[in-house]
């Protein structure tokens, strides 16, 4: 495979990368899709997606990905389960360096790197991950049947997952550092109406404690500025995402948080390198715009490759 020149290498197989792959393979570009982890990215952690058009009643994240993969079976592309560690430009050729030592070459690259859950950064978080601290309600919720848990965050994910958890747990404490939630009003309404959810705002988590699993959460009530404790068996953290773009520093223009800056055509600061989905600098990170951007990136990559041949 090394030595071979691809038209397009897509890095990341979440909704953005998979959609880019769909468009590129339909354009008969010689396409390689790379993914280091499970196909689907963050979407597979979502129980129910209610805002993706065409699926009345909603669809689970895993099922949506399964459907896109099935759709891709009709087209030709290559797939490798590998991690990318460097991107270099040698004149007009892009070199994609893998952690396995392989170097792959392409005329154009689409970065659909996604993002990973942001950590709280408090004592106990790391130690208790998998033993009460969780970033996935759908995976871990059923282990907390009849118990009390805390959900941290104020965006769509936090509220959606707090609601989901009430199916299993006795009580959810929803803790957010601001006085108002950022989540969409319909979710705020559902949360406020749910008798199993107690809202604690504004408050910040200071520590997660326990013997060999989570037993207590220490937080500071920002109104009274007093330290308080909750007895909980689980702490579910949904405080947004951060990009994994450290390895691209100095190569592409990024915003101060490390998200890649692109124009409306998903072009980065370097010709022939496109980016789409959650790794780009933008205000709203939704599955629908990740897919839309993936399509735009692939179509522009196709145009770029055609212009190279002229």
């Amino acid at each position, binding site marked *: 495979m090394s030595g071979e020149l691809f038209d397009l290498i897509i890095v990341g197989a979440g909704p953005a990368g998979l959609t880019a792959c769909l468009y590129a393979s339909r354009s008969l570009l010689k396409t390689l899709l790379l993914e*280091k*982890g*499970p*196909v*689907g990215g963050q*979407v*597979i*952690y*979502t129980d129910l997606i209610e805002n993706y058009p065409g699926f009345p009643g909603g669809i*689970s*994240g*895993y099922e949506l*990905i399964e459907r896109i993969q099935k759709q891709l079976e009709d087209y030709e592309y290559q797939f490798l*389960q*590998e*991690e990318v560690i460097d991107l270099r430009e040698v004149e007009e050729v892009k070199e994609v360096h893998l*952690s*396995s030592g392989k170097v792959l070459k392409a005329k154009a690259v689409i970065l659909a790197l996604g993002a990973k859950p942001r950590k709280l950064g408090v004592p106990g978080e790391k130690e208790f*991950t*998998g*033993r*009460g601290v*969780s*970033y*996935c309600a*759908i*995976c*871990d919720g*059923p*282990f*907390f049947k009849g118990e009390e848990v805390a959900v941290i965050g104020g965006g769509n994910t936090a509220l959606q997952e707090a609601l989901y958890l009430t199916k299993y747990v006795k009580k959810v404490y929803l803790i957010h550092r601001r006085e108002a939630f950022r989540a969409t009003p319909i979710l705020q309404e559902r949360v406020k109406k749910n008798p199993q959810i107690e809202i604690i705002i504004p408050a910040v988590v200071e520590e997660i404690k326990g013997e*060999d*699993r989570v037993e207590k959460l220490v937080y500071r009530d920002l109104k009274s500025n007093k330290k308080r404790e909750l007895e909980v068996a*689980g702490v579910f953290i949904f405080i947004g995402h951060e990009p994994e773009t450290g390895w691209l520093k100095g190569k592409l223009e990024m915003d101060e948080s490390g998200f890649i800056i692109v124009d409306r055509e998903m072009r980065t600061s370097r010709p022939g390198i496109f980016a789409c989905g959650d790794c780009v600098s933008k205000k709203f990170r939704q599955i629908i715009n990740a897919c839309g951007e993936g399509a735009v990136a692939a179509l522009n990559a196709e145009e770029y490759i055609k212009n190279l041949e002229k």
Partner: protein
Amino acid sequence: MGACKVTDQDFEKEVLQSPIPVLVDFWAAWCGPCRAIAPVIDELAEEYAGRVKVCKLNVDENPLTPGKYGIRAIPTLIIFKNGQPVETIVGAVSKATLVNALNKVLG
């Protein structure tokens, strides 16, 4: 061939008494990330055949074993050697991470 199934009933025999190291994937059907890593688990079963036994334990059908090992998140992958858990990996990690863990245990 892929990964084999283990249950609460045969865990002792299949995992704890195994002469070679065993990777156990604790999973459930409702867990998207578990299903997403399933193909990688099957690949590892083939690639490590004869050196490491790769098994899947459904936590819904077999609640005793996950309880015994304090599992509160899935996917959780535990590598057992001589009946003892020697490596625990929580979450849908990359294949490279699992390969590194297996190679470490094999020494």
